[in-house]
């Protein structure tokens, strides 16, 4: 285990140095307590204290608009090349919930049959995590899913300890950044103790946000398939798809062809889709297998707390709270879980 420190007044130098090597993406303020990952070149542009960004960093791992095939149909042929497009980049300031989100996507796209576009792109992205010293707001439920502390998934991990960051160097790529940027200093016992103190304090702050033993969640969902809770959500849901778009683990997609004006060449693109949209589960013949918003909301929750637990032994809720924060209809994840619990007693 290797630790170094970065004095806060060297952050700018670090970012400037990094951005000379690759694109650096970090959380920036958009006003109204909204944040987004955007390209930065200076430390000062970064919002170090931020609540989860509007879109999670999944936008870099599975872009909203992704070319997967380039084709040419001249002379009636179906000629094609499968391709991947990517930017090499460094993501700075990724919270532990979002690191967990990326790990979930890794699991899905590495599961056979593997999605090579995703896998190739993910290996072009260096991840620098940033610890949350306190809750971002009332929507977070990170302790419920044990994401208030890092569970790997990063190259470097920053902990803000006042006038310096303690940095855990987790990978060789991370190590490389340390030696290339030359702004880090060795960490000693005093630094480590400061982090221990923070972690002790965090144990006091972060308590399971929902009144259930997390191990019992899949069982709760097993019993809740016909719950009234879903029907109530269905009445309130706008079916706008915001909750899934902002979710760090939602990864449903659609595939479309984009034709050039020659009508012969073009590309096949993958775009984000949402199971909350009314036509998502409709087949060409007209049958719609999730016609009602209630069924679609239930599906979304089961895809966070039940199906992935059965299949991958992990929750696909990272506790980031984005779905609750973004919902105009005030559908709140913690409330939904509370309602299910109340009903099941």
């Amino acid at each position: 285990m290797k630790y170094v420190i970065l004095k806060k007044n060297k952050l700018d130098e670090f970012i400037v140095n990094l951005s000379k090597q690759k694109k650096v993406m970090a959380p920036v303020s958009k006003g109204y307590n909204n944040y987004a990952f955007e390209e930065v070149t200076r430390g000062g542009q970064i919002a170090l204290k931020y609540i989860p960004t509007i879109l999670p960093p999944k936008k870099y791992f599975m872009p909203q608009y992704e070319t997967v095939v380039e084709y040419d149909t001249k002379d009636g042929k179906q000629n094609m090349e499968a391709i991947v497009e990517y930017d090499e980049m460094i993501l700075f300031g990724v919270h532990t919930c979002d690191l967990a989100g990326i790990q979930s996507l890794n699991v899905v796209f590495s599961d056979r049959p593997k999605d090579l576009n995703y896998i190739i792109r993910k290996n072009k992205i260096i991840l620098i995590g940033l610890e949350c010293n306190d809750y971002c707001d009332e929507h977070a439920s990170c302790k419920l899913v044990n994401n208030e502390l890092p569970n790997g998934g990063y190259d470097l991990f920053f902990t803000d300890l006042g006038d310096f960051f303690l940095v855990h160097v987790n990978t060789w790529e991370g190590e490389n950044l340390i030696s290339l940027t030359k702004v880090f200093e060795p960490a000693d016992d005093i630094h480590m103790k400061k982090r221990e103190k923070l972690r002790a304090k965090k144990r006091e702050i972060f308590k399971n946000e929902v009144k259930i033993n997390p191990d019992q969640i899949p069982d709760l969902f097993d019993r809740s398939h016909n719950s009234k809770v879903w029907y109530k959500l269905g009445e309130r849901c706008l079916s706008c798809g915001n909750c899934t778009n902002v979710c760090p683990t939602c990864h449903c997609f659609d595939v479309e062809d984009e034709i050039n004006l020659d009508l012969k060449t073009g590309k096949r693109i993958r775009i984000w889709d949402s199971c909350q949209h009314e036509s998502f589960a409709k087949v060409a013949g007209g049958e719609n297998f999730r016609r009602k918003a209630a069924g679609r909301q239930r599906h979304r929750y089961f895809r966070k707390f039940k199906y992935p637990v059965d299949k991958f032994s992990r929750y696909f809720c990272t506790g980031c709270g984005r779905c609750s924060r973004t919902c105009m209809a005030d559908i709140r994840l913690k409330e939904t879980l509370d309602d299910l619990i109340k009903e099941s007693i």
Partner: protein
Amino acid sequence: MNKPKVAFFDFACCEGCQLQVANLGEQLLDILGVIDVVEFREVMSEKWNKEYDVAIIEGSITTPHAVDRIKKIRKRSKVLIAYGSCATIGGINGMKNNFELDEIREHVYPDNAKHFPTIPTMAVDQVVKVDYYVNGCPIYPPEFLKVIKAVLKGIPYAVPDKAVCAECKLNENVCMYEKGVICLGPVTKAGCNSWCINNGNICYGCRGVVTNPQEQAQNDIMVKYKISLDLMLNKMNMYNKCREIDKDE
């Protein structure tokens, strides 16, 4: 292969959508490379007396004469595209339908009113069959291109039937409601890539209302943000008044 004969027509409108087409720049040249424009009042005086492969209609139908004219165009056209809010949903011309016809006619043409017969504003598809829609006020140029390509390829184009919010969120705009401003994004059909909101404006609903606006949920939201039904309807009717014609039927 012969290039398809394409004609542009305008009815009651500001011709702003034609301007969008003219402003396509280099892409317009590409389009002109694959189609043969045979009528386009704005840029040429020639007329075409045979069948149109594609008729592109701007503007809404507001007079008996316009009804005849659009029916004739429809008969002569293999494919008909309605483009712009006026043509696709009636658009702001629909505000006329808030008033008595005679009253409004006399207001506009005081002494000559009797020479200007008028009817309630209608979208093109409330009079003739429309094959393709390019919604928006004005049209969103990338969508216009998409539709043109679909027409040339002979495949249908489906206007997205989800809310503008879905695209707005992908653009990471701060929600207008968080800024304390009323926006019609939640009820309006997407496909514009939340063009207005990306540029700091609100959504005025120019692309028409989604097929299933989840009314209960919309009501909840109006209550939450303390918006009266009157105010909301007022805002919606700016572009969507003509929708009432379909409801009456």
